[in-house]
């Protein structure tokens, strides 16, 4: 299952596969709490150095799943970014706003939702 979601030539494949397996192991309660917090469908349009593009969908609104390809029926926000940018975002080297301001990340649709991408990508977070 995890292999289907990977795209050869994309470093973010591992990250997305990790997200997918994490989501698939979520209990229903966990899924509900994530969905409640995020409530959005993200399309990640990732391009790599070889100018190839792949789209992954993170559905944090209805099903709580991650899959390759465009969102069905429709994403709330499409995030267009480079492979490396996605990795930096996930590792916390870059935050969404900085990426946006420097043009590394572009959005289409509900931009407000894009601000939540950090939360979705990141794993366990310490609390204040």
């Amino acid at each position: 299952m995890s292999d289907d979601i990977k795209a050869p030539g994309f470093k973010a494949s591992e990250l997305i596969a990790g997200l997918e397996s994490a989501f698939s192991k979520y209990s229903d309660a966990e899924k509900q709490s994530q969905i409640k917090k995020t409530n959005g469908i993200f399309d990640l349009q990732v391009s790599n150095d070889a100018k190839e593009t792949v789209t992954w969908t993170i559905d944090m609104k209805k099903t709580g799943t991650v899959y390759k390809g465009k969102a069905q029926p429709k994403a709330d926000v499409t995030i267009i970014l480079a492979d490396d940018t996605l990795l930096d975002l996930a590792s916390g080297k870059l935050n969404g706003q900085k990426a946006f301001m420097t043009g590394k990340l572009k959005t289409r649709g509900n931009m407000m939702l894009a601000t939540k991408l950090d939360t979705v990508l990141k794993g366990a977070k310490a609390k204040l």
Partner: protein
Amino acid sequence: MSFQGLISGSECAAPANPLSQVLKHTEGDRSLQQDRVSGPSTSRLHQLPGSSSSAPATEHDLALARQFFEGNSSGPGMSSGYTMQYPPELARMSEMSMNDRPGMSDVWALEQQQQLRALEESAAKGAWAAEFGNAPQQSSSGPSIQHAMPGGQEFQQQRSSFMPMYAGSMPVAMYGLSSPMQYGINANFTAVDHGKGKAREADFEAAFAKIAESLGPEETQTSRIEEVDERVTEIEEKLKNATLNAGEDEDLNFQKVWDQLQNSDLPPPKEDMAKWEAEFSQLMNAQREELEDYGTNMQKAWEGGVGDYAGPSQGVKFDGEGIPILGDYLFEKNNKYLESESRSYLSDAKQLLESNGSLSEAALMLEAAIQRGELGEGGFETWILLGETRNMDEREEAGMRALLEGVRIAEQAGAPGAGMLSLAISFTNESYDRASHTMLVRWFKAKYPGVPIPEETAKSIGTNSSWDTHERITHLFMEQARSQHGQDQMDPDLQIALGVLFYTNGDYERAQDCFVAALNVRPKDYLLWNRLGSSLSNGSKPEEALGAYREALQLRPTYTRAIYNVGVACLNIGADKEAAEHFLSALSLQESTNGDTSDQLWFTLRRALLSMNRSDLADLAKPEAKSNLDVFRREGLDF
């Protein structure tokens, strides 16, 4: 500046009243044709003397000005009327194009013209008044144009973010402005043709209303329909006449506002214009995407019968300022303290907290206190204490609800400020960034009543994205911190607030600095040690974070959140077993009171167990499973 010249129009060949010049622009962005064809007024605009301003800026100014005029003159007046009254007409229009009877179109157009005139006169007046009602008061303050612009809010909202990125492609985007919308409308018209017939008119009306809504007021301009269809072009011509006629009625009102705009000495700075320009084009592009998708979706829906639209949203609802609407605090059932006798649960709980007692225990006492009507000082003290205790006990949801209630009561009691900082921190933990910003500003207002908050900042809270408000609020707080520093003062609370702000934005190093500064004043504050720790941990320094957590736990061994954070740091280091043990010990602390345990703790425990490849244990570690913690102890986990 060129903008001034444009407004005054004194050297133009156009009539003295600038309004008529403005109206020329109402039918759409024909600037390119006008450049070649029409009078000196427009061509002059494009060939302003190089001395007055640099060429690219002039281009932008012009484009912006053009948009501005378009938006003001035709936008509001038409859009409101158009949206409401047109669906039937449009449906007829499509039928007619099917029948294609040449004689009829003339008659029809005439009829339309009359209707339009009436519509214009009634709709425009109200809209003009509404549109410009604000302007006079604002004309003295800097960029007054910004306020008068329809959709100005949206522009501000994205101003900071779009600017750098689109600066490069600006001229292109500028010329592309009108075309996206045409495509969008085209798609809809095709859809109409497919959906002829009475039964579908209703569908179309709904669709049209929806589109109009998604377009927002500033885009629903008659100008865009221009090239859609030959017949529409005809109407467009009539419309133009109608607009001009109606325009004379508005002269008086408009003239007033206009004069004021002209007299304002402060033209908007060039950078702002460029920003608006970039943002506007970005918005338009986004809208086009939506429309394209929408067109295909609608077609599918018509072809396939009932469309599959999203069900009720499961997400948290927010109020106008981004504060989540969570509902009432849920008291725990079977609270043993409700039965037993005590003088005062509030003071008992305080005592327990003082003496490092169990947080869950203290929370139960506070709940009992509230249920018995012992609300403490001002009616909010117990609520806020309960909320803070819940948060310390890693029960964020319960904590937020209690704090929301406490803050509400405190505001009603005329003692705003209490609990607000804690609530803002709670929102931050739950990634409710807007709510966190709102609360921080409210706290600031209560804490420093003498310090004015810029109107822009106050306004942006309700409308703009957290990326924009963050910048504004940080600026406000930094200014305050600087002025305090100038007077050799240091308010640890302000430092905490700043730290939270940096933290929200992922600026963990600066957050650390703020918490360290606050710790210099309050070295015994275990909450602060924990906050420093989580800034370090989230800033990819989990090892250093452990040191800060240790300080916190030495001061407060039962601090569940710090234990949880230690677990998270272990998880990030890759010490999964240790992480699981920490989560388990936090859970056992909560369990010892017979109270509820924290879902968040269970979730993270599960994650740790999965990383250990112990999915068998992970299945047991669900909050709903209510597993006995001894199961994990038997598996060799030591806690």
